[in-house]
């Protein structure tokens, strides 16, 4: 048998992008401690619906920590207090009976609130669209082992590709900078042989798009702490190095590698 928790929630409620928002307090009673954070919100919402109150809109999809849709600030931390855990993977047993939990949407000027806890993260799609793919037409997929990839490069690329694009890094950053997300998306291509022909065009293009939406990194390191996939700050250094290499030699224009 699981034990049950009685909690007080302070939830950010905002009817729409231009409407003012505020914290509203709800009692969450009888929450099984083996439910997830999102299931806890489901229970609260069922209660609200029964009472004819508009349910809390919150972002979620896969609920297994891989899609990056969920993500809210929980007691001032992105995805809550557990390290390397997305909101959907956060379990209520990590909280104590009687706790007050403050829940707020991601905040960044480029992330307008759509409703309650849901924000518009399309600026991140814009960054991907400006270079986070390999364009060179190569016909149909070749043999898996046709392009040899050194183990170190493959692992580095996989570490970067673990990014689920949830936006916690930007939400956690006091500057609302997009460095960790952009560098992860950049590095998973720039570390592979297939990514080389467009390497420097890619870094310039993605960085310039990022800078149209987000702030300037001051290396606080909050992003890496918030990341549910533990993306490393090293990727930011790699991105900075690639960007300056590209600029100093004008590589994006001359296409030298």
């Amino acid at each position, binding site marked *: 048998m699981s034990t049950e928790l009685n909690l007080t929630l302070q939830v950010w409620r905002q009817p729409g992008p231009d409407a003012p928002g505020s914290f509203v307090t709800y009692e969450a009673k009888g929450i099984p401690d083996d439910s997830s954070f999102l299931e806890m919100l489901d229970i609260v919402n069922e209660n609200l619906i029964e009472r004819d109150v508009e349910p809390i809109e919150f972002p979620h999809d896969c609920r297994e920590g891989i899609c990056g849709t969920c993500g809210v600030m929980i007691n001032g931390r992105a995805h809550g207090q557990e390290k390397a855990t997305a909101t959907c993977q956060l379990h209520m047993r990590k909280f104590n009976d009687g706790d007050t939990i403050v829940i707020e949407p991601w905040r960044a000027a480029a992330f307008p609130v759509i409703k309650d806890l849901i924000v518009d993260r399309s600026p991140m799609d*814009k960054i991907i669209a400006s270079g986070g793919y390999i364009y060179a037409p190569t016909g149909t997929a070749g043999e898996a082992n046709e392009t040899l990839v050194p183990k170190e490069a493959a692992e580095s690329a996989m570490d970067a590709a673990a990014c689920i694009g949830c936006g916690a890094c930007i939400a956690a950053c006091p500057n609302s900078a997009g460095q960790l997300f952009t560098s992860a998306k950049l590095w998973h291509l720039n570390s592979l042989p297939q990514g080389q022909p467009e390497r420097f*065009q890619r870094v310039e293009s993605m960085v310039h798009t990022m800078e149209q939406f987000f702030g300037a990194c*001051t*290396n*606080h*390191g909050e992003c890496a702490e918030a990341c549910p996939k533990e993306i490393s700050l090293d990727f930011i250094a790699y991105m900075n*190095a690639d960007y300056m290499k590209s*600029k*100093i030699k004008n590589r994006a224009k001359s296409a030298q590698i």
Partner: protein
Amino acid sequence: MLSPTTTPQNSGEKPMREKPRDLPFPLNIYQSAIGKKWVMAVSGLMLVGFVFAHMIGNLKIYLGQVEHNGVLDYDTDHYAETLRNLLVPIFPEGVVLWGMRLGLLAALLLHIHSAYTLSMLSRKSDNAYAGKRDFLAANWASRSMRLTGPIVALYIVIHLADLTLGFGIATGEFEHGQVYENVVHSLGRPIVAIGYIIANIAVAVHIYHGMWSAFQSLGINNPAYNTLRRTAAQVISGLILIGNVSFPIAVLTDIVSI
């Protein structure tokens, strides 16, 4: 970046700011935030190099009077004299010193300009939380850069007036070239000494985050020494703190006197 037909449809979210039209190389580097941050790091490291050398040079205060060519002289004064005569006779007296000063001034101005514009960029991009934030990695040094920076700037102006130019806050006894005595007179005033202590704590705190930050901004990353970057910042800022704060304390406690 590539053919427009492959670019997915805009999702409705307008950029906060347009990308400016490219200036000619190398000015275009400074148009991006990452480029500005690179300039900030390079200029910051130049300034750290100066602050460190300045601190080491000032340690000569503890040598007091030393004999040079048979004349008893304050070692600090002799050192200041040597700085003015660097690379003489290849260059006329003072030229190398002025070259270094202009280089530092350029670094300082670029550092301040990049700090200011990047801070403004972040301020416009940020949207404050209504609830309390719980920081995990951002420390008091990294979060106070925009406070310690201007304190350092103000201190530089006051300090130059006090001990280089000899006006404003300088003592009535100020005399060009009498470096040792000027220091003892100025820091003999408790209020001024306390001001120097506070300002130099701000310098050290600023450098503590700045040094570590500069490695990231420059993209210097090597598994062999990544863990040493924090240590390097601690050691350098610690030495600068101890050295610089010791001077006003030494004068106040008469360890250094005339």
